[in-house]
């Protein structure tokens, strides 16, 4: 996702928010299928080597199985387990929710992959420069703390302190490591605070600088994005786009408005992929020939 990664963070945020919100609101198997397909494509493009979707698949399977077993609603029983019916409606509903959850998980994975801490701060900074700074400081502290805790514990072992033994002993040992770590953290914090004050922290209103520009293609994407969101949402005010599961399965009436909404939504979902591929082609055939 080279193109999508390099575009303005607000655009990515708007994309992920609108897609997850719309797919959840419509709760329509057609919409869900489109979302899942796109999310899978994006996941494959984003994921690192050796990263599998096994965990996501297990969640998918669990949600899919649990719903028909628990839910007794629905008009078309398929089989009976004891006196409990497993209905077609509950089965379809389970399949839809499971796919929806899987799609959102895939999208979320891609979102965290695309949005690093710097982008997060850029998005937070207009609301509060101090909050953005806090986020930055916390992000730096976390790995430092983990490393220090490991070091203290290893040093204790090396100096002949035994952490094992009975449970109260272990608790006491853990407590000591924790207390050493917190003392270190406080001490560390004082130096950091001094360093901040030395460089003028607190002398006036803070500002925040970041280097995210707004390319022409970002503008095109944003405009298309907004038009497509409108195209997907507005028709639903005049016709029903939601799918009904209970008591019986009922697909919404297929009319011009519904087709408009569905196709706008499908385009919206695949928009990053379309831009990504266009960008790839552009580089392959145009820019690389220079």
């Amino acid at each position, binding site marked *: 996702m080279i193109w999508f990664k390099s575009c303005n963070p607000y655009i990515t945020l708007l994309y992920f928010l609108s897609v997850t919100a719309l797919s959840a609101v419509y709760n329509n198997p057609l919409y869900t299928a489109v979302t899942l397909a796109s999310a899978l494509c994006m996941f494959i493009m984003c994921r690192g080597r050796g990263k599998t979707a096994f965990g996501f698949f297990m969640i998918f399977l669990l949600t899919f199985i649990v719903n028909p077993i628990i839910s007794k609603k629905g008009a078309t029983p398929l089989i009976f387990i004891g006196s409990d019916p497993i209905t077609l409606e509950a089965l379809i509903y389970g399949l839809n929710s499971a796919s929806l959850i899987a799609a959102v998980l895939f999208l979320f994975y891609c979102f965290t992959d695309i949005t690093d801490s710097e982008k997060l701060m850029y998005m937070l900074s207009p609301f509060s420069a101090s909050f953005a700074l806090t986020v930055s400081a916390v992000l*730096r502290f976390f790995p430092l703390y983990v490393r220090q805790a490991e070091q203290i514990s290893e*040093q204790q072992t090396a100096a*002949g302190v035994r952490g094992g033994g009975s449970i109260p002993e272990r608790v006491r040992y853990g407590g000591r490591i924790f207390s050493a770590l917190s003392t270190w953290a406080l*001490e560390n914090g004082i*130096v950091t605070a001094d360093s901040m004050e030395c*460089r003028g922290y607190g*002398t006036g209103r803070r500002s925040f*600088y970041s280097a995210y520009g707004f390319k022409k293609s970002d503008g095109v994407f944003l405009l298309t994005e907004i038009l497509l969101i409108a195209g997907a949402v507005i028709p639903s005010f005049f016709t029903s786009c939601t799918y009904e599961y209970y008591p019986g399965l009922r697909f919404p009436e297929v009319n011009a408005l519904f087709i408009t909404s569905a196709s706008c939504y499908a385009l919206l979902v695949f928009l990053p992929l379309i831009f990504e591929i266009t960008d790839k082609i552009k580089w392959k055939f145009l820019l690389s020939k220079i």
Partner: protein
Amino acid sequence: MEILTVKDLSFTYKNAGAPALSDVSFSVSEGEFVTLCGPTGCGKSTLLRLIKKELTPGGELSGELLYKGEPVKGLPGRISAEQIGCVVQRPEEQIVCDRVSGELFFGAESLGYPRDKAYRRAAEVSSFFGFNDVFDKKTPELSGGQKQLLALASVLVTSPSLILLDEPTSRLDPVAAADFISMLARINRQLGTTVIIAEHNTSLLLEHTDKLIFLEDGRITACGTPRGVLETKPSHKVLSDMPAPVRMFFESGKTGECPLTVKEGRKIFDGTTAAQYRNTSFGEKEVLSLKNVYFRHKRDGKDVLKGLDMTVYEGEVRFVFGGNGCGKTTLLRCAAGLAKHYSGDVRVFDKKISAYKNGELYENKVSMLYQDATCVFTHETVGGEFKGVDISCLPYDISGLLDRHPYDVSGGELQMAALCRVLSTGPRLVFLDEPTKAMDAAAKRIFVNTVLKLKENGVSFVISCHDTELAAECADTCSMMFDGKLICTCKTEDFLRENRFYTTDKCRMTGGKLI
């Protein structure tokens, strides 16, 4: 023009009997490079902290302290932040943000600079320091030397006219320290920024210094140009902080002009001295052997140790040299059984290291001291770590520290106390990871004596270190680590004589006759 005037300055910390500074007077002109030196606890840091009003500790102050004619205390916060920059010892802790770019912008952001100005300053400084390649990187990924340079760079963004540095190179390897000092000298020369630096080790600084100030017990005992101060033989304490050419000059009783650099020293000492080495013998029993050892942190990571071999004998003091991040610490951890190698053979006292169970290895056989001495102390007081230990048997007298909190003890003393703690189990094989960082000359002396005394009793040491002078004084053998292997191991004098960068100034000046 005088940028800083100090007149009859005395300072006493709250709840302290003796004053930390008494009747200190000196002045600094704009563009001067001032070096403050003196043993630990002489008041160097206190003096720097008084000049930077944000860091001024609580206590009683008398006398005058003027920055550009204005009392430092009354300076507006903005002026102090913008015009007086400060870099401290520990590079890790003074960095605030998780990105290099954020760190460079920090000062400008705090002072609310307009975007264009902030960008121009940050861009300029980043280019000057060569940070353009790491501008988007995360700060924890930088090396120690880069972190310290970043701390200096981030201070420069607001174009200060005075920079204060408190032992900025004490935690860096010699190559990184030299880089840092030469960058500092360049800033002083090219930008005309006034520099006041407190440092134990003056060997890198003397050639850049315009004014050398020597503090002892809170008083100035010498002040002037390096040549002026060194016209007559300085006191023993001053001398121990001076670089090797100066020390050798006065110790040899030569007359004439004192050499300040290795280049000047070579003219005097080369070819005139007879070879003379310390006796470096040790036992024949193997206490540690590593054969073809491989280690990596993660399965998908890179090998840190790549087929490393190493043998240490009874009573041997082995120093391991190598650049920062070459895997010295990892080697020590693997050899001490604290990190698990994935291939190869590690034997301690003729037994596979995995055969020692439940920490019996650390009961009285092996011990290790990490770089950060504070990791040793998990109690409220230093004494808490020594329960059930006979204090009088320890190699260093810590009786004065027992009731104090570990963080209130000075760096050098804490390091010695930590060393005592890891030796208190009576180990026969000791691993030390850069044990003399933050130690002054006097503390190093005690360290060397401790190691040599234990060596006589057959204790073996493996010490990772950057300090070649320390190796010259107490190492039997030295190894060079590179690319996950020990690429050479030989007697200390041969090692230092053959090396061109990892050697002592003494060795450089005498062509290897003295180490």
